[in-house]
């Protein structure tokens, strides 16, 4: 049976078209990955403004570097690598001073205070998540990025290694150290 569905262009096809100057193809690539790229930048920096700027800069650099993209890694990995490096650069230069905190409005939105039992449960979960988020923010930058890619983006170590430009063993060790540090931190603050 023949499918009548229009074929969805692959990343490689879109990269090839983008390379020849077709912005529409690059637009499709951007649409495909912009939310992921924004999300990883947001998680690393903890700041919407920075994440917005970094997501834009990631795609801007990708466009400028299309000619040198060899395809050794997938397009997705390449974009993550640019975004992660840029995000770490921001974190390391300590430009991120605004930490996002839970506001009373957000607590209300989570249902705290609405129904006593559910509210207490949610408050405890929220409090635990907040402590964990703060502990993640305090990790050394590369451990933090590795943890985010592994735990939040569900990346295998082999892909993390390509993003972080290290060996899979190093990626795994970084993740282990990060989780161990979180464990220690959570135990200390509980």
């Amino acid at each position, binding site marked *: 049976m023949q499918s009548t569905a229009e074929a969805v262009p692959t990343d490689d096809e879109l990269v090839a078209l983008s390379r020849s100057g077709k912005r529409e193809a690059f637009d499709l690539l951007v649409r495909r990955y912009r939310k992921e790229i924004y999300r990883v930048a947001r998680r690393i920096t903890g700041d919407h403004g920075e994440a917005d700027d970094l997501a834009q800069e990631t795609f801007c650099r990708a466009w400028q570097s299309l000619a040198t993209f060899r395809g050794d890694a997938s397009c997705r990995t390449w974009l993550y690598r640019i975004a992660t*490096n840029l995000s770490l650069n921001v974190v390391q230069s300590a430009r991120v001073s605004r930490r996002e905190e839970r506001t009373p409005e957000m607590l209300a939105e989570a249902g705290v205070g609405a129904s006593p039992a559910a509210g207490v449960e949610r408050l405890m979960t929220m409090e635990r998540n907040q402590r964990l988020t703060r502990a993640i923010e305090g990790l050394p930058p590369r451990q933090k990025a590795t943890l985010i890619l592994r735990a939040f983006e569900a990346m295998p170590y082999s892909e993390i290694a390509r993003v972080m430009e290290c060996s899979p063993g190093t990626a795994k060790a970084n993740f282990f150290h990060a989780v161990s540090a979180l*464990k220690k931190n959570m135990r200390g603050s509980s």
Partner: protein
Amino acid sequence: MSASVPCAAARRRLMDILEGPVDGSISSHVAGCEACSRELQELRETLESLQALADTGDPSPGPDEAYWSDFNARLHRRIDDAQRSDVAAHRRGPRHRPLPLASAAAMIIMAGAAFVSLVRQAPTMGPLSVPEAEARLERALRSLETLPSDEAVLMARVAIDGAVGGWSSTFREDGEAMDLEEFGSQDWSDVLDETITQPGRMWSPSLSDDLERLDGPGAERLRNEILGDPC
């Protein structure tokens, strides 16, 4: 407790136990060792908390639909602006600009500028193809791995990525896009004055070899500053 596997060896494999099957002797040790079992349980609970946090979804509050509908249009403007800046920079030629004083940022500038310069000034090279240039930059990148600070290496990578990407070598400092190609000889001198405090520790022998091949204005000083006496 297993006598054949020390606790320290078992502790290093706890994450492996959580992520998949491991050597039977390790599992046996952990199962029979109270301290290692407790450690494993705490790690498991931390991973579960992480998973629960991940399951809450994207960071909140996230951008709304209006943000995403405008995203690509803003990106187009940014790309166009960057291209116009590149063209303008080439027309203007080198110029003096205020330098960032933070040593790490200055190191990035120097790293990027050094590599751009390496490719541009070495008299024996002539025009380089992109693969040749990339190979040289890769080698320089490996040299940077010898830097004592992981963070400096990472930041230098960004500068080098920029250098590979069309020789525009831009990076951001205090929100301003800067172009390494625009650095003139005075900028170089200032950067070197700011950053080279322990010359011998910053660069590896392979980069030193490259630097020996440099020619052009300021090359001698650059060599002296970078390669100087490590003692």
